[in-house]
């Protein structure tokens, strides 16, 4: 199997799903826009609220004139900055000691103050605080609270029920809390003296210009938006109305939008990624199967199988599979052509060889000078070699014919092997043969002659490769109903790449340059071994010896009953 480098299609497609990450980014930008818009809206609203309250107090000298006669309050720097007015829970009138701290009591104006109180209370907005100051920056009245009561807020949806609620509360909520930092209602809502007297918006309002500003609470837990509007009495500014609100409402709206966005994109991402992953898996699965099939389409014996995977599919993989099949078919035809080639070649060459040999024979009959006959000898020598080549080539094709006609019979493989090895000892005197054969008969069904021929070829091969004097081991083993015949020889090991092809027609691993032997090799010997083995439904394996010093060729026959 080929090793694939780089990323698989699956990984690549999964990487492509990261593009979905753009969705939350776009959503984020959108929510930011919305937040800005809401903030602007809130600002406009509280400016309007301040104006409305101020208008309600316009031209009511009675209410504020009292104040003008009053002595000036201490300047802001005289008052401690931390010495602030703590807002009471309910609307209070400035006469309260606790509320006003060390400020001088405002005598004789209770009625007026109560009226102001009433007016601003009527103007009051939810979660906003309205207060009124006079020219001396004296706080005249305060109404409302900055804190929101979350339990009653209609803007905050109740937690969902069921499994979704569980997911939301156990997974999403903690995640969002960590990511978004929800606005806290637990802030210091004290009205510091600096705000009261030194606030820019108050300053400007008291000079007659409406203004607004944004500030943090003293503990920096929340941002407060405040708008101030002058109260006119005729042409004179007699005081200012200040409306304050935290930005918490906008923040929580923004957060909710974010949460929604995150939930939706998370879902979309998971869904999209899941779909793509399934698609990618299917795709790469099909391709992998196609690859495996293509790899095994040409089996160890060189036979070409048809591809099944995706052959009916209408997409590109189907196309690929079909064109693979076409290529393999052509390859198979070419293989057949090559195998037949030997047969045709030997047939076609025989006539010209007959011409040459009969001419040489005739020539020899003439009275020749001795030096001429040398050349005839050489020509005949070459001819003999050529004939050997042809004979070997024919052998393979003849073998195929024989196998079509031969009668199968039961025979004892052990006896055949022992007989053959006896013959080899005299046929190859330069080599030693060691044999190990079971005592009991090993019955096979087939042709003893053919098996003997198989063993001849394997042993010839072993002899050719092993140096003289070395021992060739022939072993017959019984193994789970199979008879394994193996021939091991010392010699050069097989090249890795050739191990599967060795038994194909015309394949030879012999080094032609080095071995100057006179017998030509066509790589047909082991091809014949394969043919005979197939005839007996046996498997042939060529492996290197475990000690790496040579080669073992084994043929595993199924035993006859």
């Amino acid at each position, binding site marked *: 199997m080929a090793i694939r480098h780089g990323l698989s299609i699956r990984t690549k497609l999964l990487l492509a799903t990261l593009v979905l990450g753009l969705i939350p980014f776009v959503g984020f930008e959108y929510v930011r826009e919305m937040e800005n818009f809401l903030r602007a809206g809130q600002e406009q609203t509280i400016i309007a609220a301040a104006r409305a309250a101020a208008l309600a107090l316009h031209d009511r000298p009675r209410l504020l004139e009292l104040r003008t006669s009053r002595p000036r309050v201490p300047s802001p720097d005289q008052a401690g900055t931390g010495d602030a007015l703590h807002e009471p829970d309910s609307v209070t009138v400035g006469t309260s000691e606790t509320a006003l701290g060390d400020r001088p009591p405002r005598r004789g104006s209770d009625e007026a103050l109560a009226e102001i109180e009433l007016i601003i209370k009527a103007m009051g907005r939810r979660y906003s605080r309205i207060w009124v100051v006079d020219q001396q920056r004296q706080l005249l009245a305060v109404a409302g609270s900055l804190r929101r009561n979350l339990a009653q807020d209609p803007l905050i949806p109740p937690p969902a029920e069921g499994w979704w609620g569980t997911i939301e509360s156990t997974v999403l909520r903690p995640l969002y809390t960590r990511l978004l930092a929800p606005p806290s209602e637990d802030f210091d809502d004290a009205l510091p003296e600096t705000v009261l007297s030194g606030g820019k918006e108050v300053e400007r309002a008291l000079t007659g210009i409406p203004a607004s500003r944004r500030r943090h609470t003293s503990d920096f837990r929340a941002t407060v938006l405040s708008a101030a509007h002058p109260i006119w009495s005729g042409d004179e500014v007699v005081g200012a109305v200040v409306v304050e609100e935290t930005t918490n409402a906008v923040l929580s709206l923004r957060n909710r939008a974010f949460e929604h966005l995150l939930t939706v994109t998370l879902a979309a991402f998971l869904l999209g990624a899941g779909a793509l992953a399934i698609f990618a898996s299917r795709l790469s699965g099909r391709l992998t199967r196609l690859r495996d099939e293509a790899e095994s389409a040409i089996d160890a014996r060189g036979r070409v199988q048809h591809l099944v995977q995706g052959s009916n599919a209408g997409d590109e993989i189907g196309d690929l599979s079909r064109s693979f099949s076409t290529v393999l078919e052509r390859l198979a035809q070419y293989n057949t052509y090559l195998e037949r080639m030997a047969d045709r070649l030997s*047939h076609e060459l*025989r*006539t010209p*060889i*007959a*011409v040459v*040999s*009969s*001419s040489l*024979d*005739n020539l020899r*009959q003439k009275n020749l000078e001795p030096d001429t006959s040398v050349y005839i000898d050489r020509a005949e020598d070459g001819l003999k070699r050529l*004939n050997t080549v*042809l*004979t*070997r080539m*024919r*052998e393979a094709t*003849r*073998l195929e*014919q*024989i196998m079509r*006609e031969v009668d199968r019979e039961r025979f004892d493989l052990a*006896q*055949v*092997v022992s*007989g*053959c*090895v*006896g*013959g*080899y000892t*005299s*046929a190859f005197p330069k080599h030693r043969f060691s044999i190990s054969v079971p005592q009991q008969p090993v019955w096979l069904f087939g042709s*003893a*002659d053919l098996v*003997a*021929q198989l*063993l*001849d070829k394997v042993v010839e091969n072993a002899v050719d490769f092993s140096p003289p004097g070395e021992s060739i081991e022939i072993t017959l083993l019984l193994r789970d109903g199979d008879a394994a015949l193996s021939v091991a020889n010392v010699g050069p090991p097989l090249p890795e790449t050739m191990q599967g092809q060795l038994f194909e027609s015309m394949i030879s691993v012999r080094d032609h340059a080095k071995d100057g032997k006179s017998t030509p090799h066509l790589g047909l010997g082991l091809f014949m071994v394969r043919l005979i083995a197939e005839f007996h439904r046996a498997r042939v394996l060529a492996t290197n010896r475990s000690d790496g010093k040579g080669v073992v060729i084994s043929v595993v026959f199924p035993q006859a009953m």
Partner: protein
Amino acid sequence: MRRIAIVEDNEVIRENYADALRRQGYEVAVYGAREEAMRAFRTRLPDLAVVDIGLADEVDGGFTLCRELRAMSETVPIIFLTARDSDFDMVAGLRLGADDYLTKDISLPHLLARIAALFRRIDVLSSPPKHDDVLTRGPLTLDLKRLTASWNSRTVDLTLTEFWMVHSLVKFLGHVKNRDQLMSEANLVVDDSTVTSHVKRIRKKFAAIDPAFDAIDTVYGMGYRWKEG
């Protein structure tokens, strides 16, 4: 003078064989096509015919010629000399009544030896057998002059190649003859599997007369041996 007809479409081979045979003192007539040869045969039968199977356009022209010639004469020796070496062709040729089937690998001396042997067989068929020319091994009798074999006094119709193979096996009883030896004694240059199929055919011919025949023993990896009954 013996008259030999060569029917062969390749002119060079034809002339080469003709030259060699003429040198041996035979009279040789050469023909390149079946019709031409048959016309000549109708006028005068040759003493021996060497025939190629593929003749010009006719793929099996030699087979047809052999059949026609055999119809004209029961005894004229016919030798197929062809490039085709499949068992199928060999069996077909011998069934048509040819006396031998040779492939073109055969060398001229071998061919001449065979032709001489066939003529010798014709010569001695009429004369009574001399004792020293007969080899007897149990039920087997080989007449070395006539090149005929008999088993239990019944004639076994062996071709020249088959006869020489049997002779080689029985000459020294008990000796194992390997394929190469059998080939050289039969003046044959063929591959191992051809020897195997020759031996198989010999066995069949004997078995046709005596179903219990099993005198030829296969010694795997070495060759064959004639078992003494």
